[in-house]
């Protein structure tokens, strides 16, 4: 990677970027995480903010400097625009490990986000435009696994020591939960309710007993299909 791209000039990188942009031109596929983060607007176009830090090596727009034929600065003027740019704090690191400063290239899914429970008004329009990319929610698999465990149908191998992926949070984000725990007034009693949702041997016995009571008194020795059983059942009435 470093060998191929490390020596490219800014102009060459811009050419790569332009080629990629040409490739993606006219594709207005909406991606749910982009829409949620307000990075993409509902018509599929990406949001270009006119505020925030400028790239390293770029100056915040506004200053005009005039020089005379001796190279001395003789005048300074400023202009203003709607933009609200600021200088970047520092340059990102190009080493194998280091503070990149930017969020570009990081995983959007690793940031905790509140779950939206309502659809925006443009939901109807989405269906008629280009198809929406439905990225699988990583929690969905865990939720299904948990349900399966509750029903007793799935043996889940617990990784050594750690929790298996699913825990209930009554707040919208983990940060809120932690914050609430920190700011909770002392005088409120601290009651922890343990909800055991896993299969206990005792409960298992109880359920088995109930199940046993439900069994049919005279099971048919030969059952040649659902239709036969049903007929037999009806005969028994």
């Amino acid at each position, binding site marked *: 990677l470093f060998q191929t791209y490390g020596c490219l000039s800014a*102009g060459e990188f811009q050419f790569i970027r332009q080629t990629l*942009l040409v490739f993606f031109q006219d594709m207005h596929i909406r991606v749910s995480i982009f829409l949620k983060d307000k990075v993409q607007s509902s018509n599929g176009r990406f949001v270009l903010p006119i505020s925030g830090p400028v790239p390293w090596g770029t100056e915040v727009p506004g200053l*005009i400097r005039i*020089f005379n034929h001796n190279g001395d600065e003789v005048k300074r003027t400023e202009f203003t625009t709607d933009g609200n740019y600021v200088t970047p704090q520092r340059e990102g690191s190009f080493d194998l490990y280091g503070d990149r400063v930017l969020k570009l290239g990081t995983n959007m899914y690793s940031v905790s986000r509140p779950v939206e429970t309502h659809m925006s008004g443009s939901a109807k329009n989405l269906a008629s435009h280009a198809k929406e990319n439905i990225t699988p929610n990583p929690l969905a698999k865990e939720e299904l696994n948990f349900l399966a465990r509750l029903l007793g149908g799935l043996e889940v191998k617990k990784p050594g020591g750690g929790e298996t992926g699913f825990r209930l949070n009554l707040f919208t984000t983990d940060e809120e939960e932690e914050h609430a725990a920190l700011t909770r007034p002392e005088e409120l009693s601290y009651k922890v309710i343990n909800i055991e949702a896993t299969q206990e041997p005792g409960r298992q016995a109880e359920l088995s007993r109930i199940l046993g009571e439900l069994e049919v008194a005279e099971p048919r020795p030969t059952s040649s299909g659902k239709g036969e059983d049903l007929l037999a059942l009806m005969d028994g009435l």
Partner: protein
Amino acid sequence: LSLQAAWCILPSRVLLVLTSQKGIQMYESDGSIMVYWHALDIAEHPPAQAVFARGIAAAGGRFICVGTSSGQVLVFDIPPKGTNITVSEVLEQHRDAITDIAAELGQAPDGAGDLVTADDAGALCVWSVGEEFALLGKIPAFGCTCSSVKLWHGVVAAGYGNGQIRLYEAATGLLRAEINAHARWIYALDLAPQTGKLLSGAEDSFVHVWQLSRNPDTDDIEIEHSHAECVTDTQVCGARFCDPEGNSFAVTGYDLSEIFRYGPA
């Protein structure tokens, strides 16, 4: 893949010039006939590097200059009519891919040159145009790609990838003005030759209009900000004045099927 298109206005004819990764095409002004095709020489370029032509300008009332990704500038000699177009010269002063070429749009003061060429590294060359082109001077790079360039009354206006516009004296190469104009890569510069208005468009979604002038007493080059437009959520890729006075201008953007035209209220 076509990269650029430009009208080349010569006294005898107008040609439409298209550049791409394959080569250079020249058409009659109504687009009906291709009068010339020049294939790019792959051998001139180092292996595993992009090959393309970029930067188009008509110069000296007789030539059309086109830049290449190898840094060469091809000079085509254009007859008043017909298809007998030949390569009269190859200019080899740039070591990096050519980004833009501009011919003098006004009256050049003595020694100021007729043509400016710019490259990926940010270096600029000033030339006098003729049977043989002569290099008059070089303006060194300062570490940033010069993406677009214009030449007017001996003033070089250069737009850079870091959002700066710089004005240089063409005759001496001296820096006369530095403007922190944009927050992102400047894609387009245009100049209205009758008024000295300068138009800049960049990836930050802004288009600015500036007013260039010369102070008659000090001979200093001056520039003022005139007007700004924000094309919301659009990376501006092209910006051109629609008339020689610069009363109105048109803007194009990435992934935009419309051309926006701005004019006086």
